[in-house]
């Protein structure tokens, strides 16, 4: 099906890019691949031919380290040539290892330090409301960045200002930079926290295309409230030996591991 095909391409690109660049963060790219596939295939009102079209939906990857997956989906959707993916983390003014908007069509906001995306999203949503624009603002956050105070400053702000054109999606893969979320700084009850702050919350399986699509097609969940989707995901999803392994927050697949990973995704060559 269409989502599966696109998600698999995203994963394959991200694996090749990470391998070539000897880069980190493959696990976090794999955990958001399915969400990005649904967003870009059928949810976001964006146009690769007109990346700055004023009425487009805005997408902010607040977890900027998951950028290989976002570059991949943007290339697949035609925002820029797929050859650009070969420049990921290479010398020169190319695709940086944390998402950058400079010279990259389709990227709205540069991030990389956690906790910056949701406040910027609030500003964009506020402008949209004020100017009676139809667009929505989607912000994809990591679970780790829910440690950041600035995330919760924005979480307080958005419901107070009834920003129901703002959607926070949390990639809850349960592993942050130096341990599991439970070990480092437990977020539970995470849904309860967002509800208490005034968001309309849905919890979904972030790898079940039907659940992702159902959630993203019923926005806003409640008129007058911002929506929060807590997507339960698996870090490293799709590659058996990377799943739920902290090490793949840092490691880069070698040639043999890349071959095995691509084979698991159905790329046997």
């Amino acid at each position: 099906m269409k989502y599966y095909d696109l998600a698999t391409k995203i994963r394959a690109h991200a694996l090749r890019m990470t391998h070539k660049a000897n880069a980190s963060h493959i696990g976090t790219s794999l955990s958001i691949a399915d969400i990005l596939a649904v967003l870009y295939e059928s949810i976001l009102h964006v146009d690769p031919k007109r990346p700055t079209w004023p009425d487009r939906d805005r997408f902010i990857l607040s977890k900027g380290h998951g950028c290989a997956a976002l570059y991949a989906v943007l290339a697949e959707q035609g925002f820029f040539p797929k050859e650009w993916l070969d420049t990921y983390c290479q010398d020169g003014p190319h695709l940086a290892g944390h998402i950058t908007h400079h010279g990259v069509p389709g990227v709205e906001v540069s991030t990389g330090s956690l906790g910056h995306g949701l406040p910027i999203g609030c500003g964009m949503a506020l402008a949209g409301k004020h100017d009676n624009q139809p667009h929505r603002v989607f912000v994809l956050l990591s679970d780790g960045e829910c440690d950041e105070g600035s995330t919760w400053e924005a979480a307080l702000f958005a419901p107070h200002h009834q920003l129901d054109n703002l959607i926070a999606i949390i990639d809850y893969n349960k592993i942050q930079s130096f341990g599991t979320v439970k070990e480092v700084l437990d977020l539970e009850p995470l849904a309860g926290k967002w509800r208490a702050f005034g968001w309309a919350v849905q919890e979904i399986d972030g790898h079940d295309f039907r659940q992702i699509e159902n959630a993203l097609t019923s926005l806003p969940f409640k008129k007058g409230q911002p929506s929060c989707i807590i997507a339960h995901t698996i870090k490293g999803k799709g590659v058996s030996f990377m799943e739920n392994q902290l090490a793949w927050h840092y490691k880069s697949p070698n040639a043999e591991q890349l071959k095995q990973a691509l084979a698991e995704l159905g790329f046997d060559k």
Partner: protein
Amino acid sequence: MRTTFIHTLIECARADGRIWLLVGDLGYSVVEPFRQEFPGRFINVGVAEQNMTGIATGLAISGKVVFTYSIANFPTLRCLEQIRNDVCYHNTNVKIVAVGGGFAYGAHGMTHHATEDLAIMRALPNMTVIAPGDPVEAALATRAIIEWPGPCYLRLGKAQEPVVHKTSPNFQIGKAIVVRKGGDVTLITTGGILFNTVQAAEQLARQGIQARVLSMHTLKPLDTEAVLAAARQTKAIVTVEEHSIIGGLGSAVAEVLAELGSSHTTFRRMGIKNEFCRQIGSQEYLRGVYGLSVEGIIEVVRSLREAAYK
């Protein structure tokens, strides 16, 4: 300066629908007229400067000219990374306004002494840094930064600063204002310490020393031509700032002079020592602690002159 700022901003906002004002739960008895006239373009974001700066970025990316407003170090240092990554890297029309530059909140203690802000803001790419010398300059600076593309930092005093400019000067971002002509020594100042500097220059004139006074309201981009002219035309340059001796006006001028390659002029920096001020008190008292009183400035200039005669 804060009252002048808000009245000027209101006048501009009447003609320019892009202008928004965000405050971090401060501005009592100052910003209310803006809120009253433009309720849809005013937000008190709460005590949340990081979020305020991120929101400002999102609004500015969406086409607005957004002022963030708070006091002392709150709109700058508290949210420094948001200013660097969000405001500056995206080169947005966010105008950061801090009320209480230097020791304006002197009695409030160390947390409220804004004494490293200029150095830190100056280091950020894309950032324009302005510290008006009096309320007249504050009004002109407010208008100028609305038209000036990209991030700006406007460092204001607080209230009831004396007016230095009896007539409206030609205010251009990046161009120093010659407040007083003179050929013996050049006093370069930024911010509200301009008044003390002009007072000192007038007393020096009565003692036979003609001091040129430059209001270097724009710290970045610096008016290097004015500095070079002072180096060529006068025997000494003294920078006077209500700010740390590290990284502010004195450092900026020193950088220009050092790259001249040869020592054309005697140079002295006046400012706050590299320490936390352990004293509290009125702005004028704390200025005096660091030699930034009228008398302190006179003393430094006289000592330079005496050294030159030896």
